[in-house]
């Protein structure tokens, strides 16, 4: 599928999407700054969006695009709540390290 670098097909877009998803996963699992973790989640959501639109385009199907609209709306909501939580934690403890959140255990 990728043998022809000069004609862009399904595989090229999916490869970009997969690599982006991997990067996002790396950020979520291995970074300690909670803000960067949240950003990495956004990165993963973006990768999924790209896959949806790619399949929608190659299958001539509008469902992919509609789901992307839902994902974007929910991602915006998730970012708002996540940031509100982070701000509350930061105001109380002056800390953004995700390891620190272990101290929130009862």
């Amino acid at each position: 599928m990728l043998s022809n670098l000069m004609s862009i097909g399904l595989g090229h877009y999916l490869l970009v999407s997969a690599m982006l998803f991997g990067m996002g996963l790396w950020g979520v699992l291995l970074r300690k700054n909670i803000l960067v973790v949240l950003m990495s989640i956004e990165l993963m959501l973006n990768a999924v969006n790209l896959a949806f639109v790619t399949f929608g385009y190659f299958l001539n199907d509008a469902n992919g695009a509609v789901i992307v609209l839902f994902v974007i709306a929910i991602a915006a909501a998730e970012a708002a709540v996540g940031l509100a939580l982070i701000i509350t934690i930061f105001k109380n403890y002056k800390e953004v390290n995700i390891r620190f959140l272990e101290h929130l255990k009862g």
Partner: protein
Amino acid sequence: MSEVIVFYFFAAVTLLSGLRVISTSNPIMSALYLVGSMVGISGLFFLLNAPFIAAVQLMVYAGAVMVLFLFVVMIFDTKDDGKKGNSPGPLVGGLKALSIGGLAGIFLYVILFKISNFGYLSPDPSAPQFEVKNMAKLLFTDYMFSFEVLGLLLLVIPIGTVALSRIRGGTHAK
């Protein structure tokens, strides 16, 4: 031909910015690179004949969500994480990296060797599947329930956000 160049340009922007998001130690630079990545993805959406999705991506992600992120990062004004940026412990870290590698391997295998079975896929650039009217019809028929639920979610989220940021010990402490 020009489409190929544009694809590689946007793919490079997306992936390189994405890489910098997780590799830079300064959260502000992370956020800025994430914006670059999102602009790149929106360019790819344009290439995929979905200009409306691309514009929404720019408007919501790049225009609103990331500005919010930048606000918060700038207000925190945290110093660079330095070497502490990555997770502790060689064992746990190695396990995590391995799992990511495994997942990436599965992706790669599927894309390189299985997707080629979808040879019959023939995109029709003039097909109207991403036209706003088509999407709107789907949204208000098949996805009506999800749409209503989303509306409810978008009502609950602001309330929750406001409540979270105003609780005692929050922004209005003492």
